[in-house]
């Protein structure tokens, strides 16, 4: 079995299964945990609306921190959206999903996706460098932080190399690209990347807690 056969076959197969299993397991496990019940009277009567408002308000930096964290926000937005666009709207990726799901959707022209992938990779590498070289960030970073950024960056990097047929043989590049995706899938449910599921609910819970106590978060 060649490396590409392994990547297209058992590697993606098991990675996909582990990904789905892990995501469902952790999501259910977390949502089944008991929430603490409030010990005092609510100071707000529209907790649901205000919880939802907190979910959205955190998408932009709080005015008081604007200067300090705006770069982080903008960079985060760029690479998250870039990653999604490349994942879902590159023609060859649509073919992959079509092969799996039985249906596809319109894709973007290659030139646009290529540019977006380039910017996404640049931002991710910049953020990784910043994490390494900024003393404060370095101090608070753990293995989970570094590994998650690297494992997220690898598919974009290897994808670009595959697209451009850079350096080594296409089949080896494609195999490495697929293996990097397999790694991402396996890593996803058990690392901080799982925030894809927990981010919005936890913002909502936090918002409700604040508003209940009269804090307009």
């Amino acid at each position, binding site marked *: *079995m*060649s490396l*590409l*056969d392994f990547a*297209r*076959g*058992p590697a*993606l*197969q098991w990675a*996909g*299964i*582990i*990904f*789905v*299993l*892990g*995501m*469902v*397991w*952790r*999501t*259910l*496990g977390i*949502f*089944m*945990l*008991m929430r603490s019940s409030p010990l005092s009277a609510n100071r707000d009567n529209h907790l649901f609306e205000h919880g939802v408002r907190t979910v959205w308000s955190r998408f932009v930096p709080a005015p008081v921190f604007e200067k300090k964290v705006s770069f982080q926000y903008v960079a985060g937005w760029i690479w998250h959206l870039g990653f999604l666009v490349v994942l879902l709207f590159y*023609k*060859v*990726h649509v*073919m*992959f999903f*079509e*092969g*799996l*799901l*039985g249906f596809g959707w319109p*894709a973007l*022209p*290659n*030139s646009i*996706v290529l540019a977006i992938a380039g910017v996404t990779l640049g931002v991710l590498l910049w953020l990784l460098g910043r994490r390494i070289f900024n003393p404060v960030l370095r101090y608070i970073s753990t293995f989970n932080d570094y590994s998650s950024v690297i494992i997220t960056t690898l598919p974009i990097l290897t994808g670009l190399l595959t697209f451009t*047929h850079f350096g080594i*043989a*296409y*089949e080896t590049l*494609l195999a490495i690209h*697929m293996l990097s995706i397999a790694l991402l899938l396996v890593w996803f449910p058990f690392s901080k990347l799982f925030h894809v599921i927990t981010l919005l609910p936890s913002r909502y819970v936090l918002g409700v807690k604040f508003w209940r106590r009269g804090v307009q978060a």
Partner: protein
Amino acid sequence: MTTRHVPLGERMQARGISRRSFMKFCATTASLLALPPALAPKIAQALEAQHRPSVIWLSFQECTGCAESFLRSNTPSVESLIFDTISLDYQHTLMAASGHAAEEAREEAMKANWGKYIVVVDGSIPTGDMGYSTTAGESNIDTLKHVAEGAAAIVCLGTCSAYGGIPLADPNPTGAVSVQDVITDKPIINVPGCPPIPAVMTSVLVQFIAFGALPELDHLNRPKVFYGQNIHDRCYRRPFYERGQFAESFDDEGAREGWCLYKLGCKGPTTYNACAVLKWNEGTSFPIEAGHGCLGCSEPNFWDKGSFYAPLATATHLDTTELAVGALAGAAVGLGAGYAGRAVQKRNKQGPFEAQPGVQPTAQPDPAEKEKS
């Protein structure tokens, strides 16, 4: 037989081939082998001077497509000229009518040219029940071992002899193997393809006859000069691939416009062969030019690499049913973990609370005392 040396000119005349055609053949071969044009006359000289080398051709589990591809020609083609420079002493398909005399001729040729003859093999070798494939009552594996013993080199013609090919495809009922799985002590040149391009085969033989040397081979024992680049890198549809213009079906607008066939399963990007350059039928066309994606027939296990019509970018084993099973298993584990987590939460709430190991309770000042002071 290799006994009487008839001059090449005489032989060519007998077949109605002009000297001009012969020189053209030598020049073409030199260019195919990436040799400088100045070497063409040297090739001609060498071929003319050569005592026709003995070639023993063994056919095992095969469809005769490779032999057909190599031997076919209704007019004397460039490729067919090779038969004027070799002595084909045994080919059981062609010599079937001769009965056991064919095997006797083979033995004679082997004896007369021990250590110098070339063995050409098409077809894979069954290792299961020997009755799967025999010639003149002898199993293929015995024939191969016996004939290979005195060979100078073995040329595997076609994917079946080079890698096992279609007979080796899952579930491989005959236990088929390739020549290099059986013979490990002789130089082996693989010329894979289903079938291979005749000019490639011819050039390999000419190089061996003219210079007594094997061509430079890649990691799969293929001549680098023909198998060094993949189809995709030389495909005239490549600009459409770069732009992401893919034919969606074999008869849509894109297909008519000559767009890339990647989405229709083309394996050109992972297939190393010279089809896009040498083409077929006297350089007329090749599969991609005819509108069908490359099947990857010159690669090992090409039959077992998933559907011919699935793009390379798709997973071969992953499907939604398996993902659903994974989700169900995840739900079971998640429910279990959730209940276990709740139980721990309940127990923690009920107390009695225990200090965590290593944490010393700190003495809090009495508020009454504090007030007094």
